[in-house]
């Protein structure tokens, strides 16, 4: 029981201290740019728990969801294809390395040119930035399929879709998840940036509007919301990751034990 308390203390201790310090240090703040925390929280409630949730937050998250899902699907599909054929890999590697090295946000003006400024543009921006880490990591993962397992599948005549599902995808899954984690961070950045650049709704748009019209408290609440979304999505990702890769973390823990 005391162990659980200790752990709770360790997890919550510092965050609570920081929160309390912020709360009291800013309580009487007259600094226009640094409003008191309680005002920010009030603004948070008034700003986001209303129709803005439906009009701005939800569209942003839906675009993020569609873009991220499409990036995963495209990245894994192409990654499996490229990773399975040696010549294709050699042919495309430099091209892919270059595409990955382009800082994703500079794609925003290009995609605006080609796809306008509607929802479609934002989804395409997210896909075009988030697809590379998934793709390249999938290629690595597919390439590294264990030889003995590949032979096992051959010798038990496990082929085609069954092989793809039980051997290739599963054995590449740790790398795919690594790529997916990087892609998620990039996708969130691009969701915000594409809306800051050109939009008439969405979180990024609204936060910049607040900043431009000097609604500082509302702007702080928007920054807070973006932060919370980032944290929530990362927790969700970790939950999925732990489930999908349970075997992998278990295996690694066993391998690390001293023999």
């Amino acid at each position, binding site marked *: 029981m005391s162990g659980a308390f200790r752990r709770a203390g*360790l*997890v*919550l*201790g*510092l*965050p609570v201290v*920081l929160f309390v310090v912020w709360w009291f240090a800013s309580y009487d703040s007259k600094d226009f*740019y640094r409003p008191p925390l309680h005002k920010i929280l009030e603004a948070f409630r008034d700003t986001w728990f209303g129709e803005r949730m439906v009009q701005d937050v939800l569209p942003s998250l839906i675009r993020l969801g569609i873009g991220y899902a499409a990036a995963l699907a495209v990245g894994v599909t192409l990654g499996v294809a490229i990773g399975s054929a040696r*010549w294709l*890999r*050699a*042919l*495309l*590697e*430099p*091209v892919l390395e*270059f*595409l*990955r*090295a*382009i*800082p*994703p*946000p*500079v794609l*925003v*003006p*290009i995609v*605006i*040119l*080609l796809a306008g400024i509607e929802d479609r543009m934002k989804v395409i921006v997210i896909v075009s930035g988030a697809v590379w880490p998934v793709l390249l990591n999938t290629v690595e993962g597919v390439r590294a399929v264990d*030889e003995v397992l590949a032979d096992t599948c051959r010798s038990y005549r496990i082929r085609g879709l069954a092989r793809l599902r039980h051997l290739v995808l599963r054995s590449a899954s*740790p*790398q795919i998840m*690594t790529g997916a*984690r990087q892609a998620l*961070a990039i996708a*969130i*950045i691009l969701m*915000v*940036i594409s809306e*800051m*650049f050109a939009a008439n709704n969405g979180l*990024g748009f609204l*936060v*910049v509007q*607040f*900043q431009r019209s000097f609604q*500082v408290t509302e*702007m*702080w609440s*928007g*920054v807070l919301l*973006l*932060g919370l*979304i*980032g*944290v929530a*999505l*990362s927790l969700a990702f970790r939950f999925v990751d732990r489930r999908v890769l349970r075997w992998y973390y278990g295996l690694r823990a066993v391998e690390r034990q001293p023999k």
Partner: protein
Amino acid sequence: MSQPVRAGRVGQVPALLGAAGLVAVAVALELAPRLGLVPAEFMPPTSTILAELARQLQRPEFWVALRDTLVTWGIGLGIAVAAGTVAGVVIGTVPGLRAATSSTIEFLRPIPSVALIPLAVLLYGARIQSTLMLVIYASFWQMLVQVLHGVVDVDPVARDTARSYRLGLFARIRYLVWPTALPYVVTGVRLAATVALILTITGELIIGTPGLGKEIAVASESNAVPPMYALVLVTGLLGVGANLAFRAAERRVLAWHPAIRVEAAAAL
């Protein structure tokens, strides 16, 4: 026993294929607008972009912008690496500190740095500090997490040995923690450099601090399509160059190390 590797100059064939791939893409992007498959005013052919790039290279403004980008990137990366390393070593070696801070780190790290853009603009306007704030915030976490991995990796036997010889904190860090953590630090620098470059360009693009990103934004707003593509090409080359340089540096620094840590990079 596996099937023997097919004979031949293994290193050369992929390199040739890779070059062929680059050429093929360049040719495809040349032909697509010329054949009217995509509108040329939105997607100029490769030759136009390359000609524009050559023109850019003769403009002093281009070099100023490139220098600004490199300076912002360098300063931001330097601060983040220094702060991340010091914080990582301290948090990792002082007993209890790691446990007390881990939830806070886990909370702060996934906050998207671009969320700070409006804040930075309010506080610093379109000055370089705005972009630095983003760059440092994003790459600091990258660095810190790698260093923490490295410090934890210290061999328990070596740790006990150090304790039994009563090495002081400083000596422990110098002779025990630092050598173990070094590979992770180097990997951290490489990863932080990539992130820092992305956010440098992002800050310039969105906030308008001077640099290549701002040039792209200006080109985009004035509908100067070929310059925009040429500048995007430059940022990509910058990214590739940085990646290659930091990988080479990594191999160099770690040449003495028994195992170049592939794992740390994979665990990102």
